[in-house]
């Protein structure tokens, strides 16, 4: 597969464009509330997706949860490891939860949360897998936060929802969704 090598003024060919692997689908910003559905992101155009989260702040410390679509059903299986800045370790797991714990942490402190989430096949009629990696922005929190899991159904999703825990409200959260070209 050739790597695109563009020159100023060059006419882009279909072959060159088709060789691009990662495409921006949508950006959004959450500035209020305890949840927001990001619509129109998953389609038959892509099988796998990357979600980049940055600039995360909330009215108090809370975890960043994710649900595919908006339906509250107990189909989310996930586990994660958090390593504290002081060296302690925390394992978190849930079988049959109503959302993923992405591992993301939002806080009202000066630092801002960020991370990446990878999703495989959310729009196909099979289980969806996810992997997430976040940095905890709290100096007293846990640093490396790595979480994985899957959705135990075959629903073909077109959207996802970000939620906070404990009724904490978003202050700001920037979201960018990319699709991997097959």
């Amino acid at each position, binding site marked *: 597969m050739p790597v695109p090598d563009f020159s100023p003024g060059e006419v882009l060919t279909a072959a060159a464009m088709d060789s691009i692997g990662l495409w921006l689908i949508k950006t959004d910003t959450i500035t209020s509330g305890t949840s927001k559905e990001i619509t129109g992101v998953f389609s038959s155009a892509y099988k796998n997706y990357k979600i980049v989260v940055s600039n995360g702040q909330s009215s*108090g*410390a809370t975890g960043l949860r994710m649900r595919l679509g908006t339906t509250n059903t*107990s189909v989310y299986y996930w586990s994660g490891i958090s390593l504290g800045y002081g060296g302690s370790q925390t394992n978190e797991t849930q079988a049959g939860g*109503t959302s993923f714990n992405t591992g993301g*942490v939002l806080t009202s402190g000066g630092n801002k949360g960020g991370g990446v989430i990878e999703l495989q096949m959310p729009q196909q009629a099979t289980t969806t897998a996810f992997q997430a990696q976040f940095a905890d922005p709290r100096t*007293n929190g846990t640093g490396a936060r790595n979480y994985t899991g899957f959705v135990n159904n075959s629903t073909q999703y077109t959207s996802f929802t970000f939620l906070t825990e404990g*009724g904490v409200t978003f202050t700001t959260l920037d979201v960018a969704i990319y699709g991997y070209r097959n």
Partner: protein
Amino acid sequence: MNKMKVIIYHLDGQNPELLEMTDDEHAAYLQMQTDAPQLPQATDETPSAD
């Protein structure tokens, strides 16, 4: 809904803790960590001989 399970491994020799939490309790747990006092900072100073 099933609660999430949280296992905490300490560095100071305490036995690991197994906690079960709802989403709301997990947010309170994260807030508790945020409010926790900072651990003493390690230094490179060599203790003086008395």
